[in-house]
């Protein structure tokens, strides 16, 4: 049983309804209306989902910090996101006097749009159908291309508000986001190699064994660089509260700040959706439970780990983050691609190029070994001697027990 097998929101069905309604000459109008309707539904789901996510994050982090989290507005504080948005709407929308007005106003939108675009290609339906706009056969490439747009938004926001703290945040942001594009893309090559195609539907179909088990190194590289892309702990140097106040969006208030926050809290939602599709096998799941419930459960799992990490770990310094990207993740991604490529070449049966799940299990065993060896080698290579703690010896310059002679 599957909700979206040929359910309501499949693009063909919606298009055929509009096509039946309108005269044949206006099929272009039917096409746009169908696309527009699905886009409307998807955007609303994402925005409401982000509202729910903010409530979920504040409640969970509250509980982790031995406090309650929002519980005043609505049942269990569920109306808190709506209360926040209303507050921000009512707040005065100040623009700094020397600000570069045009860029200042566009920055929040640039940040929000890519997060929404990524959802367009996500295969929600099981085995290849679903409400997404198109069965894009270069889905992975589209995702990589779209997620790199937020660098411009960070720079625009930081530069336009003419504030030294925002400028520092923007400069850090550009350096970090650009240099984490590379490991993110390389992390996905392993997935594409095994799925033997760029389309996300193929990737989901090829995941008889979730790619997380098959290539742990690739998963680690992707998750680390994705959390750096959306500047979450331990890489949130862009809006480091303790140093830069609020980083690039220090000068924003009112609705512009609301859009920035919306984009910032949509990013973890989108990242966990991407990770479920690419590494956990989007809607595959055994048992009577429909594919979509599996999908939501996996998204929930990834979101919870991102929250958990955000509540516990401190920040790295900006040059340590850059070092980790180029020396750490970059090398791990290459090793992962190398290992997966050899395995695929050997195990793939020649004609169809498909990999049976037994091959995948064999690959996962090898890859887990490779992952552990690489991590141990990395730590041995880069662990500075700072981590041991020398035994303190009292300095000779002071002796508080010296009694009168």
């Amino acid at each position, binding site marked *: 049983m599957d909700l979206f097998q040929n359910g309501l929101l499949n693009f063909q069905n919606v298009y055929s309804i509009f096509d039946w309604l309108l005269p044949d000459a206006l099929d272009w109008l039917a096409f746009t209306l169908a696309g527009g309707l699905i886009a409307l539904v998807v955007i609303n789901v994402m925005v409401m989902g982000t509202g729910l996510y903010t409530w979920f994050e504040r409640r969970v982090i509250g509980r*982790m910090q*031995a406090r*309650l989290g929002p519980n005043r507005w*609505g049942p269990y504080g569920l109306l808190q996101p709506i209360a926040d948005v209303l507050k921000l709407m009512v707040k005065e929308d100040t623009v700094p006097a020397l600000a570069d007005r045009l860029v200042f106003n566009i920055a929040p939108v640039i940040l929000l749009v890519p997060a929404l675009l990524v959802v367009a290609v996500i295969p929600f339906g099981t085995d290849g159908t679903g409400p997404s706009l198109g069965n894009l056969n270069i889905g992975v490439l589209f995702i990589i291309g779209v997620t790199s747009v937020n660098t411009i938004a960070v720079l625009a926001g930081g530069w336009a508000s003419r504030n030294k703290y925002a400028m520092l945040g923007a400069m850090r942001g550009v350096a970090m986001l650009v240099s984490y594009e590379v490991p993110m893309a390389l992390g996905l090559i392993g997935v594409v190699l095994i799925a033997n195609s760029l389309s996300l539907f193929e990737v989901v179909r090829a995941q008889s064994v979730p790619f997380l088990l098959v290539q742990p190194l690739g998963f680690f590289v992707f998750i680390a660089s994705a959390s750096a892309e959306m500047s979450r702990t331990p890489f949130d140097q862009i809006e480091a509260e303790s140093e830069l106040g609020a980083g690039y969006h220090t000068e924003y208030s009112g609705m512009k700040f609301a859009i920035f926050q919306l984009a910032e809290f949509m990013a973890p939602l989108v990242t966990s959706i991407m990770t479920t599709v690419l590494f956990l096998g989007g809607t595959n799941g055994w048992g009577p439970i429909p594919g979509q419930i599996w999908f939501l459960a996996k998204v929930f799992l990834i979101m919870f780990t991102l929250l*958990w*990490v955000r*509540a*516990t*770990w401190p920040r790295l310094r900006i040059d340590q983050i850059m070092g980790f990207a180029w020396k750490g993740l970059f090398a791990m991604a290459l090793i992962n691609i190398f290992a997966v490529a050899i395995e695929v070449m050997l195990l793939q049966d020649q004609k169809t190029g498909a990999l049976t799940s037994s091959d995948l299990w064999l690959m996962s065993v090898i890859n887990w070994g490779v992952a552990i060896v690489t991590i141990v080698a990395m730590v041995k290579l880069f662990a500075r001697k700072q981590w041991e703690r020398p035994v303190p010896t009292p300095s000779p310059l002071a002796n508080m027990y010296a009694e009168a002679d």
Partner: protein
Amino acid sequence: MYGLGLAKGLTITMKNMLKPGRMFTLHQYPDRKIGLIGLAKMAGTNPITYALKQPKKAIRAMLSLESVPDSMPQHSRFRGEEFSWYEERCTGCASCAKYCPLGIIRIVTHPSEKAVDEGDKYVLDVFDIDMGRCMFCGLCVEACPYDALHMGSGFEEGKYSRRDLVIDKQHLNDAPKRPSTWFRPQLEGQGFDPKSEEVMDWTKAGRHEKPSIEEQQDRWTQR
């Protein structure tokens, strides 16, 4: 090494999340959200009978829309705001005004017609405390030889203009007398709880015997 320290950190946050009992210093003030079990316990019955008796309240409680007034736990020695002042005990000697570091107690008296041995030397015209500038250090209460002035035990005396913060004799007289037991061991001895409803009468508020001349001299001058 190898991220084990990071993993240990994660287990600690998870442990704190799974143990709600660790929020022991958390008080929801002024009202506390309460669930069905809490309401039932307050009503003294078990949840099911309570839900049958009052379905509307039970559903609201399950949706956590129900809240119960809650007060901050305070020790009886809390140096609160509303001063308890007994005009019967106050002789207008103004030791409190002299001893206050900020000098914000204003006392105006005129000698009364009655003679000294009838026990009435001064009549108080003005006794006001500028609570806007008071820091509640309690030195005035410490200095009062006749235990007429006591610290209050509440902290909800906010006003909208500084002029209302200057409390005068009239306000002090008709405020309910629930003195805090700060620097008043005799009140602590009687087990008086300022948060309860009972009001302290002026006779029981202080040490009965008048401080002897030596004790007063000992307090004020170096003999």
